[in-house]
């Protein structure tokens, strides 16, 4: 296990964040991730960086949201603020102990927390876009995430490691190769001005002309494998029904359906968690708009697991995020929210680019990308 972790650490440090001598590197790990934190710490030392690490614990976030007043909840601690403003590299190892630990918390308090953090979120994404800050999020397999996926920890570990190409002889070479495939999809999409997505209870049209499609090839997320952009803000029209439960901050809304007019959500329903959905959509002006649209392209991820980091990468899905757009895409939407929701297009889904069918049943035909 330790060797596998050391290999993973070398991908996170040597490829994803490309740590260089003198880099100030902050490692944040969930409580179960200590064995990996140690390997990442070692790998950063060997790369010549200055690592420091701390564990983030579910319990303290819960305590804050239950015991804290708005000032306390919105406050950003100085160590995190410093890292996001001045640090060179941030490596986040998400390892949940209980994915539903915030179920009993008032969503309004989560909104307060998200709003407090928004300026720092915006700042580090901007810094990242300018090349001043490199960060990666790794989904560390735990029993909690395996349980959501309905499998054993070992089965889930195998799935996650496969999705990150860690079992390949040279994982970094495998990511570079996959990056070329993402490049072909990205360059094609940059020739398109309007996309129309058609699927079950779904017919959504939006402009992407002039926007940049980011090739997510393992630099900010691991596992990874998507291309994404920010849709033209006021152009989104129509309806979309999300196949998988939409989860955020330990909460869930199932069978979410959204109707857009002039770029804004005008109707939102869910079979469960509808109040929560509406609370999130009403968080601020930008939360009603789509900040991201993406194609999941990782064929090593085939089934829904309940871990967003994996689900949004499933080859043959698309996802749309309500809220903040990502700097570098050309998207201009501002919000304290960024909520990704996944729509599976593998069974009969279609995508039209400027009126032409370019994607069906979860794939771009070779002829389109040639």
């Amino acid at each position, binding site marked *: 296990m330790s060797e596998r972790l050391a290999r993973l650490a070398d991908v996170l440090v040597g490829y994803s964040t490309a740590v260089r001598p003198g880099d100030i590197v902050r490692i944040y790990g969930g409580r179960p991730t200590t064995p990996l934190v140690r390997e990442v710490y070692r790998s950063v030392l060997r790369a010549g960086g200055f690592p420091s690490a701390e564990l983030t*614990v579910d319990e303290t976030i819960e305590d804050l949201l239950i015991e804290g007043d708005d000032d306390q909840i919105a406050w950003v601690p100085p160590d995190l603020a410093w890292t996001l403003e001045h640090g060179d590299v941030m490596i986040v190892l998400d390892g949940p102990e209980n994915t539903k630990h915030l179920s009993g918390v008032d969503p309004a308090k989560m909104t307060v927390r998200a709003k407090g953090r928004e300026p720092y979120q915006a700042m580090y994404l901007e810094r990242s876009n300018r090349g001043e800050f490199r960060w990666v999020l790794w989904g560390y397999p735990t029993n909690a995430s395996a349980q959501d996926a309905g499998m054993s920890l070992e089965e889930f570990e195998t799935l996650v490691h496969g999705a990150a190409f860690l079992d390949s002889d040279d994982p970094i070479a495998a990511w570079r190769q996959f990056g070329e495939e993402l490049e072909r999809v990205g360059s094609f999409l940059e020739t398109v001005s309007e996309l129309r997505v058609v699927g079950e209870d779904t017919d959504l049209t939006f402009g992407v002309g002039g926007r940049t499609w980011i090739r997510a090839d393992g630099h900010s997320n691991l596992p990874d494998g998507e291309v994404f952009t920010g849709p033209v803000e006021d152009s989104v029209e129509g309806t979309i029904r999300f196949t998988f439960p939409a989860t955020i901050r330990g909460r869930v809304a199932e069978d979410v359906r959204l109707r857009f007019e002039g770029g804004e959500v005008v109707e939102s329903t869910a079979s469960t968690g509808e109040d929560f959905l509406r609370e999130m959509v009403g968080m601020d002006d930008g939360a009603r708009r789509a900040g991201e649209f993406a194609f999941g392209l990782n064929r090593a991820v085939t089934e829904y697991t309940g871990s967003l980091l994996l689900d949004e990468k499933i080859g043959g899905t698309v996802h749309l995020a309500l809220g903040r757009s990502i700097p570098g895409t050309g998207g201009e939407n501002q919000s304290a929210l960024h909520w990704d929701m996944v729509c599976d297009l593998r069974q009969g889904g279609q995508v039209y680019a400027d009126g032409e069918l370019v994607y069906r049943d979860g794939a771009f035909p070779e002829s389109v990308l040639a």
Partner: protein
Amino acid sequence: MRDLRVEKFAELIAGYSLGLRDGQVFRVDGEESALPLISAIYRAALRRGALAYTQIRPAGLDEILLEEGTEEQLGHISPGQVVQTEQLDAWATLWSSSNTRALTRADPARRKTHLAAHYRMVNRRWERISAGELAWCGTLFPTQAHAQDAEMSLTQYEDFVYGACHVREEDDPIAHWESVAETLTARARELDSVRELRVVGPDTDLRVGVEGRPWIPSEGKQNMPDGEIFTSPLETATQGEIYFAFPSIFQGQEVENVRLRFEDGRVVHAEATSGEDYLRSLIGTDSGAAVLGEVAFGLNYEIDRFTRDILFDEKIGGTMHVALGGGFDEAGTQNKSDLHWDLICDLRQEGEVYADGELVWKAGRFVTEPAVERV
């Protein structure tokens, strides 16, 4: 289920030791093995309106740094930590560890570089504490590693720690520590008028000059548990011999049966039954390391045994301790050193202390009121 004693412990730190107030920037830090107390202190701080955050250290990173780090990496201070040291209003540090000997075999020279960087931060912290800008408390959450050092089961060790802090279910911790503060302060004001202490015990007859040096009560603000009064002796007045029956520990390494002879304030002879080379190398650290920077009475009678942890051992009721090396500015010290090594002298059986010739302490107790509270 939450241990009620941990909740009381946390309230004591947040309320009594640190006096946390609304809007103060507060950090509680420690290794992951201390999580239950870190969380409880964090909650107590939130309830008091503090802008609180935790910094939970994964176990086992320092040994990787000492093994792998370059000189530059070993001596590096994270700029984020510097910023925090300047910004905090209040700070609790939990010294708990999941292995107290993890660094024992690390290369001493590399360790020195690493510690020097660490002490630069600690010194800055003390500057802010002395200037009244920062409230700080160092304490410990009982773990298996510390229980093992103390030669107890974890359950026994928990009872010991919570007893020493007076946070057992039946205790009223804040009332207890307020009364300790009163008693220790009264005792300290008495000692302020003393010119010379003479300590007599097994193989011990030591004279220590303390004229004009203020005695400081340790009443549970900067350490928990607490319970000592201390000062910094006159630098050239220490004369005679002292024997330390407890092992003397510095950075995890033990020296046994230390005997020291002082002339005109300086150690002129040092011996030990084991670790004698280490003892002499520590005394040779620098010029100030052969001079006493502290003399103190341990007065926490709930601490009735040696546990290999200085947080507790220096407060064992009925002991005295002296420290070789740097003294305390607030006690008027002139002695500077990179060393501060507390050595504990057990006076519980046969010890006597004379203040300017008058017997003031016998068999581990002051002979006159204000008596130290007995429980």
